[in-house]
């Protein structure tokens, strides 16, 4: 039964991701990207990572994609206009980056597949949220704080960019 759900969800995710790339109107691309995000969140739910799934919905499907939608709605361009501006070099560079990322993901799966299992077993009595919190504030405290400083710098940068006009 779980496997059936998994295949249905994966099918939705993959097909909508393909639509994101190939549909003509930017608004449709954004809509299918939202669908992809929701599908990924559902896949995470299947992995019993309910906290990450909800954060995925709130941050990516909710907040980030709304901003995408705003830009697309207000600018009102078609993909054909964009494609005519796109040079061949940039296209190939994009493809190269995509393959590089794919390689990284494959490597992570190869390496991470063996180590993740015992951790999950050890934490049977904790809920997902508690586990994430504990790991963030003990094992990964320094990277966590560094990331938050980086985000703070980004926020200040955004504020300065907006204020420049005055």
């Amino acid at each position: 039964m779980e496997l059936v759900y998994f295949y249905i969800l994966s099918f939705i995710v993959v097909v909508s991701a393909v639509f994101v790339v190939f549909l003509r109107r930017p608004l449709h691309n954004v809509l299918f990207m939202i669908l992809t995000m929701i599908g990924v969140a559902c896949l995470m739910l299947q992995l019993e990572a309910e906290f990450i799934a909800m954060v995925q919905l709130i941050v990516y499907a909710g907040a980030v994609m709304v901003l995408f939608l705003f830009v697309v709605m207000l600018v009102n361009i078609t993909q054909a206009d964009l494609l005519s501006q796109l040079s061949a070099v940039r296209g190939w560079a994009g493809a190269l980056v995509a393959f590089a990322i794919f390689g990284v993901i494959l490597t992570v799966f190869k390496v991470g597949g063996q180590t993740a299992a015992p951790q999950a077993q050890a934490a049977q009595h904790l809920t997902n949220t508690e586990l994430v919190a504990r790991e963030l504030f003990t094992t990964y405290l320094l990277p966590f704080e560094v990331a938050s400083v980086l985000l703070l710098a980004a926020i200040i940068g955004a504020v300065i960019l907006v204020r420049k006009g005055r």
Partner: protein
Amino acid sequence: MDAAIPMILVVVKVLLVLGAVLTLVAYITLLERKLLGWIQVRLGPNRVGPWGLLQPLADGIKLLTKEEITVTKANRVVYILAPMIVVVCALIPFGVIPFAKGLGLERLLGGAAERFDLNTGVIADINVGILFIFAISSLGAYGVILGGWASNSKYSLLGGIRTGAQMISYELGLSLAVVGVLMIAGTLSLVEIVGEQSSVLRWFVFRQPVGFLLFLIAGAAEICRTPFDVIECENELVAGYQTEYSSMKFGLFYLGEYAHLLFLSALITTLFFGGWQGPIFPPIVWFMGKTFFFVFFFIWVRATYPRLRYDRVMAFGWKVLLPVGLINVMMTAFIYTVWLQFTGRGL
């Protein structure tokens, strides 16, 4: 067979809650018109049925039988999809609200009540309940934004964009207002949050007064109630994102709006007023009573306050609500830690 019974029971539960919610939403529209009438020294609807009690039914029939107009230049698929998104996202979160506990079914059904989880009074007690609510409500914003865009009219588009901006801005305030509660309760599950408020003094409205006020204000802005209803500000935008909608598609937007009102009231009850808990009367009566107090409160506010100007709404959200929310979180953390140091137990 044994695997099928829980499935069927879940469907029954969902239908039960859905039926109750839709009926209540229909009567909240009547309640609003009646209350607004009385506050403005009018009678309100009183022609259909005794005291106008059949008015929602008449409204429903009217909406269903009205001519359905689809704007010629509209983006058809998105235009039809938008009201659906609004209604679905308004109804789904009711699944995690604990309405009651101990429905008295154990006498009726014996061990089966325990075994099939019938006695909990909540459809799904998930351990990320509050995050689930925020996730679904952030998706609900799409319905309004897309409806505004797909209508291909300037009033609709402006209304849709206003909604999107307002919802994103106030979602921050709303989430920050809840963080204090979550820190003290130490859980994201709504059932456990209610369990945490076992006596009146332990209600979170007393332990998190600032959080409660923030939540009330940000909540009103999130569901676009007066004084934050700038998205359908009729003297600037005709009717905002729903300008080009007619018949039942308009009806769905309307339904979504009032379902949001009911849901927000239920959520305030659950988070800050001890949920279904109370003496003498059965839990469901307490829950409904508290919820309808807030429904009444929001209608009362609508009758009392004028609408804010749009830039003031945004400035208030970012410059007042957000900083106060952040300070509240920090103060709660500080007091909690100190209290833990001296007494050795949580707040």
